């Protein structure tokens, strides 16, 4: 009796949270859909869900909060550009009016190679891309996540020095198992008990960076919602740093292993260096590349999934309002389901990236004893 009642309560809570999450998501989604509707009225009522989704998971110069009819409320962000002709330009993106207006010769390209990016229109009418280090939505989200990490872990460290040898309290007790998890389940088994310590700071930073950004990406309103850990630039840099650390911590055996793999027949190495080629491409090219693609694809796919199910409502709604309304519960149920999977994926991807990094470090540090 008690068990079934508890289960009932759990289901009610899950459904209510799901609905809440999704209503907020719809709100965050609103500007794009509203804008797209604006666009579609101009372009004869054609809904372009693909464009909306890509706009959502991509970067932007302002941070949309909500829009109603043709009024868009968004947080203006700082644009920092350097152009060879006019020098530095620092201004708020509100000056650009969501891409409708040019400011000091800078405007957001509506199509072409630089679509969505800030470009400078030269006097002869040609377009030039300036050096652009604007605080975009992704950059701001990145900085917020870094600030969050600094605050979380420095305050946690301070607690340790304040109350040494005491049971953890508050956030410390939530983060400590994760730190121990990274140490005991990732670093020690893959690198080895006597060498893991040197890599712990990087592994912990990467683990929490990916996890926190994945989770923030799932929050539909302001501090979250940006697709940071599903951005190829971010995953590329993470993969590159892992790669560089691997190279710098590699020892002689690692390179011997690459060039002259032990335990492989000689004819795979000598006339045609097949094995060295495979080893090199695996270690130098494929591993970092796969590391980059995996995180990017998983997180972006999650965002696309959620957005697609929400877009289904508008696709059906564009065909027939009744169809749109009646499909809403189905769509929301799917989104709730995906959301729970995404919560899991957020952790799993952080875990996988950290684990693989640790494995690569472990291989680079391995001694020739096999």
């Amino acid at each position, binding site marked *: 009796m008690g068990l079934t009642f508890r289960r009932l309560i759990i289901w009610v809570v899950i459904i209510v949270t799901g609905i809440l999450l999704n209503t907020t998501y719809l709100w965050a989604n609103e500007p794009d859909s509203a804008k797209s509707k604006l666009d579609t009225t101009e372009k004869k009522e054609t809904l372009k869900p693909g464009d909306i989704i890509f706009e959502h998971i991509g970067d932007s110069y302002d941070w949309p909060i909500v829009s109603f009819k043709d009024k868009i409320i968004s947080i203006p962000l700082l644009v920092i550009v350097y152009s060879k002709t006019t020098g530095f330009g620092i201004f708020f993106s509100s000056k650009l009016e969501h891409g409708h207006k040019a400011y000091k010769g800078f405007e957001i390209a509506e199509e072409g190679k630089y679509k969505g990016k800030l470009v400078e229109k030269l006097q002869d009418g040609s377009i030039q891309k300036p050096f652009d280090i604007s605080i975009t939505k992704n950059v701001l989200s990145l900085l917020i996540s870094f600030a969050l990490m600094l605050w979380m872990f420095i305050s946690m460290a301070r607690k340790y020095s304040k109350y040494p040898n005491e049971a953890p309290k508050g956030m410390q007790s939530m983060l400590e198992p994760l730190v121990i998890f990274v*140490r005991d389940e990732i670093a020690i088994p893959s690198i080895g008990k006597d060498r893991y310590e040197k890599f712990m700071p990087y592994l912990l930073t990467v683990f929490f960076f990916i996890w926190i950004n994945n989770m923030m990406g799932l929050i539909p309103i302001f501090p979250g919602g940006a697709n940071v850990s599903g951005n190829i630039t971010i995953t590329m840099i993470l993969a590159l740093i892992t790669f560089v650390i691997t190279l710098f911590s590699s020892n002689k055996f690692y390179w011997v292993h690459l060039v002259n793999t032990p335990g492989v027949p000689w004819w795979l190495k000598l006339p045609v260096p097949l094995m060295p080629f495979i080893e090199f491409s695996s270690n130098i090219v494929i591993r970092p590349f796969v590391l980059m693609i995996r995180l990017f694809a998983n997180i972006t796919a999650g965002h696309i999934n959620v957005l697609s199910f929400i877009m289904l409502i508008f696709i059906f709604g564009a065909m027939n309002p009744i169809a749109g309304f009646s499909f809403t519960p189905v769509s929301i149920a799917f989104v709730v389901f995906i959301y729970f999977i995404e919560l899991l994926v957020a952790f799993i991807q952080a875990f996988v990236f950290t684990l693989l990094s640790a494995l690569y470090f472990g291989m680079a540090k391995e001694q020739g004893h096999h």
Partner: protein
Amino acid sequence: MGLITPDPGLLFWMIVSFLIVFFILKKYAWKPIINALKNREKSIENALRQADKVKLEMEKLQADNQKLLAEARVERDKLLKEARLMKDKIIEEAKGQAQDEAKKLVESARTSIQNEKKAAIKEIKDMVAVLSIQIAEKLIKDKLSSNTNQSDYIDKLLNEIKLN
């Protein structure tokens, strides 16, 4: 496609901020946290080991105590037994001594009584002798006042003495 082309602005911010955050966290967060965790684990391990040691010691102590207690009990029993023996012996000795003493007293009393008795008898004898002499004197004085009487008496006495 915009989705898979790296963005230089984001790349710049990511590298700069990631490295800064990494080094700050490394110095002010990860090192203290990892060290604190390690120290705590060590201290817990030490405490557990200490507890085990103390437990063992306690057990040993308890065993020692038990042993001591048993020894003390045996000692006590022995002491009690000895005391009892001693008591019996003392009583016995005292009894013997008292008996001896009593015997001696009785003996001495008896000898002194004997002596007294002898002395008394002797005295009585002396007295009787003196008295009889006095009486005899008086009698003789009376009886032998006349010659006849004297000769009668001598005859009588001579008659009494029978020569055998």
